[in-house]
């Protein structure tokens, strides 16, 4: 069934909810793997670099922001891999999903900032429209 599942995460509670569904689906198929993709927005780069001592420290800092989801996956005892990408969240997730030919994309319906969503449109909607595989949007 779905062996290679992309879980798009922004580190929020919504992402944890999405992770729960991803785990449910992954546990149906032996040898399935969840690919956790965390996208750092371009606009954060300046502030992130200013507030970190080195690129290694920055990477750890960013991993920490995704820790809720990773902690959940650790406890759920599923196989997963993480990638931190930098760019525009929507297009980056789509590109990653299409390049890695994942079987399914799982994404939370709302990110951290509802004002942003109003202005920029929702990331999940963009992803669903452009990705080449089935997508599951978790409410």
């Amino acid at each position, binding site marked *: 069934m779905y062996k290679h599942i992309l879980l798009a995460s922004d580190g929020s509670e919504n992402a944890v909810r999405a992770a729960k569904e991803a785990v449910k689906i992954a546990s149906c198929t032996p040898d399935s793997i969840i690919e956790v993709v965390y996208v750092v927005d*371009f606009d954060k*780069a*300046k*502030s*992130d*670099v*200013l*507030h*970190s*001592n*080195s*690129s290694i420290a*920055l990477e750890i800092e960013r991993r920490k922001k995704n820790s809720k989801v990773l902690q959940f996956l650790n406890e759920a005892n599923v196989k997963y891999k993480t990638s931190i*990408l*930098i760019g525009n969240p929507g297009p980056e997730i789509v590109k990653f999903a299409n390049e890695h030919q994942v079987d399914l994309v799982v994404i939370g319906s709302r990110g951290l900032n509802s004002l942003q969503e109003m*202005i*920029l449109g929702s990331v999940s909607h963009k992803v669903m429209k452009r990705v080449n595989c089935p997508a599951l949007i978790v409410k």
Partner: protein
Amino acid sequence: MQSLKQQWFGNIRGDILSGIVVALALIPEAIAFSIIAGVDPMVGLYASFTIAVLIAFVGGRPGMISAATGAMALVMVPLVREYGIEYLFAATILTGIIQIIFGTLKIAKLMKFIPNAVMIGFVNSLAILIFMAQVPHFLGISNMTYVFVAITLILVYTLPRFIKVIPAPLIAIVALTAIAIFSGIELRTIGDLGNITQTLPSFIIPDVPFTFETLKIIFPFSLSLAIVGLVESLLTSRIVDDMTATESNKNQEARGQGIANFVNGFFGGMAGCAMIGQSVINVKSGGRGRLSTLVAGLFLMFLILVLGDLVVKIPMPVLVGIMIMVCIGTFDWSSFKYIVKAPRTDAIVMLVTVIIVVWTHDLSKGVIAGVVLSAIFFVVKISTVKIVQEDNRFIVHGQLFFASSDGFINYFKNKNIDAKQIQIDFSNSRIWDDSGVASLIKVEEMLEDRGISVVVLELDTSSKKIISKLQGMSSSN
């Protein structure tokens, strides 16, 4: 690191498009920074052209945009005011020489010692100073000036939601310049503050006396410019590294900045460096390679040659509005949270950096003061040893060396100890030098005089080595 071919031609389409976007965004900034420095707009435009084109070849960070910048313009204000533009060209050439030397001496490594707090102070004070430089151009001139500044700001912040391909500042400039021309509203224009000549830059030798006196005048400015340029360039290259998930050669970048400024001074340009804002725009617009920087420089010059007549008609309030946007983008808004949450000393270093820059109008002085202050804080922090007593066991926390040895001795001097034997535990400490060893010997002697024997526990290998080197120094046994 990518191959040179990859750095140039790995992303041709994206680089050409983003280069054009950057050229359009660069023109108002180059003009505004010239006005800040007190020189003709052409000086900033020539600098932006020359630096961008050269850095495309000699820089160490593909995809980074270098040109005339506000940080550099601010440093050169007094030089231009008191000695004139020819001294600025000479200072620019000398800045290049200093930066080439810094680059050859691998100074980029030293940049690691500039703490975050100083870097945050750097961008914040830069934003504040650029904003302050705009104030005389809109405050108390006319009501129409306020209206145009406001409309510009509204346009540059709302347009990007609807139009993504064309940079919003460009749309604001074109639309508002057209309105100003056709409605005949009285507004100051760029033409009122300087000339735009539609010619390519040509080779000049700065018209200054080649004497020691001249060197004495320009050297302090050149040194400041060299430092400011390298700080901003290396910070920008770290940001571009992060955004593109690639690495760059920091020493090559430092040398490249030097070469670009050296040549730039001979072609009538003002000293420049990498630009955070423009580099971010470049990467966001799809620019990744050296080609994007080259296209930005060439297209900028092309636009000036073709549209120079129109550029002088741009109303000053529109340019001011765009520069206010640049300030808002430059300022690190998470600083307010930082002041509250960061360690007290870091917050103080950041604030001191800002205050000194705003006071002196010289970013290099702020950086130096910030680095010195944080070094002092660091020494104070590591030069305090804390000793925790658990029964007859005294656990040392911290580093034992020349600066902390007094504190270590004083603790035992003032301590009432009843026991016949005590243990000093070094599991959380380390002895760094002969002062550290001496202070331990001193404490042992002092306590033995009081009839207390001392057992030293848990010394690590390197501390033991230092002690054994200095053994036999104790005055009695």
